[in-house]
């Protein structure tokens, strides 16, 4: 019997076959609460893990998101050492209370390919992983397994840079980085769903920037180029930005969005603001262009100081 941090018991049932071990956690003393939530868009959390000793925070994030989404947690051992399942369960700690079930397996063959195949077999999955899984072959690159998974442009992935001091994660503040393009709608929806499930607000950040590759699809809205009279322009612009942000399906009435605007390089400004506002999760759209060293997404992942959920933009 496993005991949660609140003293209530958990029953662990383990099933296994040649490929994987399935762990069912049955809660005792927990009253079933009917939750008025829309169906979760995430059914499985895919969590490649290479070293428990250095991954307590990542485990906590994976566990937390698994609970929020009411999704299965699929932990895949991709490290050199074969992990002990009891060690893993111990590592889950209090986070295991609300897990519906988790799956623990070991990657066969190339770990990156294995995880990618797994994501194809398990639709509605969300990767949660550290940036440094696998060997780091070049400076300023992530671990080889992380890089190979990113190269397949997963639809949703939470990345954690290995610079977290904390061991436990909880989500109190979501930061949505929004570049004003329609492509960000997917990220808005993801942030909204999480906020709704957690009952918290979303801080939307738009970074006014400059550069040759500024997005410009129809319906895009940047920080205003013309601020004729700030006393009128800002309320008007903010209202319009929020209208577009919550357009088309985002349950705006159930979620409070708060908008803020900064200026500068998008990646570093998002990361800086995430640290300033003590965000627990940054949600942002990405276009799958991971090879450049200084893409906004890479900068945010490295320096935001919290997990970053990348959502593949619709236009790519």
């Amino acid at each position: 019997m496993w005991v949660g941090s609140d003293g209530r018991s958990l029953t662990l049932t383990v099933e296994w076959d040649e490929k994987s071990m399935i762990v069912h956690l049955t809660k005792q003393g927990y009253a079933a609460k009917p939750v008025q939530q829309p169906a979760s868009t995430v059914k499985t959390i895919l969590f490649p893990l290479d070293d428990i000793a250095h991954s307590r925070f990542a485990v906590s994030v994976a566990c937390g998101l698994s609970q929020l989404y009411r999704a299965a947690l699929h932990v895949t051992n991709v490290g050199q050492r074969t992990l002990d399942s009891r060690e893993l369960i111990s590592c889950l700690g209090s986070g295991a209370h609300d897990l519906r079930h988790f799956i623990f397996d070991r990657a066969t063959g190339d770990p990156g390919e294995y995880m990618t195949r797994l994501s194809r077999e398990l639709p509605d999955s969300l990767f949660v992983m550290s940036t440094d899984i696998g060997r780091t072959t070049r400076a300023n690159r992530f671990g080889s397994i992380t890089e190979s998974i990113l190269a397949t442009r997963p639809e949703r992935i939470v990345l954690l840079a290995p610079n977290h001091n904390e061991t436990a994660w909880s989500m109190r503040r979501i930061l949505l980085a929004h570049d004003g393009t329609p492509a960000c709608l997917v990220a808005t929806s993801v942030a909204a769903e999480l906020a709704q499930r957690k009952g918290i607000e979303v801080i939307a950040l738009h970074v006014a920037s400059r550069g040759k590759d500024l997005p410009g699809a129809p319906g895009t809205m940047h920080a205003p180029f013309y601020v004729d009279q700030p006393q009128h322009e800002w309320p008007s612009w903010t209202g319009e930005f929020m209208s577009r942000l919550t357009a088309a399906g985002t349950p705006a009435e159930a979620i409070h969005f708060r908008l803020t605007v900064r200026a500068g390089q998008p990646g570093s400004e998002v990361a800086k603001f995430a640290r300033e506002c003590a965000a627990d999760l940054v949600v942002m759209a990405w276009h799958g262009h991971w090879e450049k060293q200084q893409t906004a997404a890479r900068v945010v992942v490295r320096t935001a100081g919290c997990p970053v959920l990348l959502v593949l933009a619709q236009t790519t």
Partner: protein
Amino acid sequence: MDASLSIGNQTHGTHASAALGVPPNLDSQDPNWLLVEEGFTLRREHEIESLFAIANGYVAARGSLAEGCALSAPATFVAGVFKQAQDSVPELMILPDLMGVRIWIDGQSLNMERGEILEHRRTLDLHRALLWREWRHLDPDGRITRIVSLHLVSLRDRHLLLQCVTFTAENYSSVVRFQTSIELAEGVVPTSTEAWKLQSDSVSPTVLSFEVCPAGRDTTVNFGISTQIFSSGRAVGKRTVETSNKRITEHQEIGIEAGSELQLNRLISIFSSREVTRPFEYTMAHLKRIVEVGVAVPTSAHVSEWRSRWHAADVEIEGDDSLQKALRFATYHLIGAANSEDAHVSIGARALTGPAYKGHVFWDTEIYMLPFYIFTHPPSARALLEYRYHTLDAARAKARKFGFQGAMYPWESADTGEEVTPPLVIAPNGEVLKVCNGEMEIHITADIAFGVWQYWEATQDDDFFVQFGAEIMLESARFWASRGRIESDGNYHIRHVIGPDEYHEDIDDSSYTNLMAAWNLRHGVETANLLQQRWPEKWSELQRRVQISEEEVSTWPMLADAMYTGFDKQTLLFEEFSGYYQTQPVNLKDYEPRTAAMDIILGHDRIQHTNVVKQADVVLATFLLWNEISPDVRAANFRYYDARTGHGSSLSPAMHALIAARIGEYRLAGHYLKQAAEIDLCNNMGNAAGGVHAAALGGLWQAFVFGFGGLETRANEVSFAPHLPTEWRRLAFVFQWHGSTVRVEVEPTVVRAVVTGPGPLKLHLEGGFDIDAQPQREYIAERADVGWKRWAIAHSNS
């Protein structure tokens, strides 16, 4: 209430436009007259609603989808109808959507978000001010419906709106229900009278009537809506009107056969207590007259009125279709913004096309929009200036409040003429910014005086000048005489101001402000002299009424002469304000390309310490005072400040285009012209969601006519210095001057001019010759090796 509904037979073919008596299709029209939005992009909907707004200066309707969508923000605006909540500034009231019609087919809502859009196109016919919509839709049940609708807001009969919807059931037979709903909120109440009674024939249909009482005002606005339905087939139906304490809803339920058409005509009348004492009675009587004649007659009258206005305003460009369309878009919205019949309203920053800026009126009405009206429709210009006369008492009160004399016009004004600038704004970065413009951006007073003089000079409308203009000239000059003081250096200084460059607040001696103040003082003197010489009775009356004396006026020339302008004879530059040269230099090129304003990038506090100029400021002064500033000074200041101007105001690019064209910087002029043309029409900026940028549109017109056309006017002379960019084959424009109409055509090798009206007019061609142009004759000047040859008569039109 329930009633059976007899359906009239449609007798004019199958297309809605045929029944209306207007051409059936727009495809054959010149695309340069059409603003077309193909398909549907939800996130652009607010912009589209603004761009496609229809207006006549009295009333306006945004170009919203009749059935609505997730981002619809439909609105009706009536000029001068403001509401005001306690402890807030007045705002132009968003009146109920009059064009909203929901459609139900067999109980299923027909809308863009259910099923598949097979075709969707919105077309604004700029020439006739008709808003068309063509929509073909496959609903989830496989039914294909075709809708063609037409909206107009009559320019001939400003109290009339028309909406015609042709509904075709392509592949099904069904029961169709049209639903109109008016929310009874914010002082909206139904007005129930005999006219409420349901009629059983479509010639005398039910009138849906209601009244709006804006909060904080004793104005009432009355609306009457009458619906007619015609069918191409045999159809019967019923009309139902439901009222609750929340809304009035009218349903028209009609059976329709596959392949047949229904036409729904809605005739809408509006009157307010601002213009008539019994608006409800006027509404009903008006509606009765319109119902009797049907939609075709008022539609034709509307189209005819627009044709007439375009005849006096259109600027033609051959060689650049996108600029041509942008200019016509600008002209369309400018025509629709003004009402020559109402001297108690002016044009807000977004005209009547959206709620942004709360309908407030700024300096840009006089400096950026007014010239369009002065030179194309003087009655509209006069009405705008009379608004300033009717709010003169409020301007006097503001001057007294701040311890000054004369009239200190508000930075923002609404219906009463009082200062209505919001005191604070919270920027999205969380900064709470104090808004000082109401107290410090005082150049608006001189700008209004400038508009008065410009109008009078162009029209020679002595009646206006004596009745209204002169008093504005004197009271504004009086303000400037009290606002500054001669200091120990012997100069007249005006401190603690904000110039058009609003990046620098609470500065001393804004050169724009001081130059315009000096101009105002001098023209105040000239006004006093004119009154004494030509209208002594008026002068006497003003002496009594506003206690002005010759002695007081006699001090003004000295103040104007002593005005500190920051001019340096060595550099030929006007220092934008005292201490500008000590600000931190910023190289704007380092920030290019960018999509955000420089004050966002650098921050509100930092930019105040830099040399980045928000908009045309000194450059604008050199244009307004063109004949008082030498060419080398104009050019030097343009080049100096152009490199330092961030164009963070929508007004700025057009003005830089204008000056660049005049001083021969043609490539730069073309760049700014394009930028100005895209302010509302560019589809990835979201700028126009709260309404079009009316002053920027006025600036665009000025850039073409005063910049590339090179039109300059002096007291008794009209001058041209035309320039065609290499890709343009022809530029043609028309303007009013001293009661005559002058048409000018510029081609690479020839300039043509025709004067109609009383004439003759003295025309001067820069680089060419003068001529006293006789009316009804066409004059031609051909290009010479250097400049232009002498004018010659082409042929007689008489």
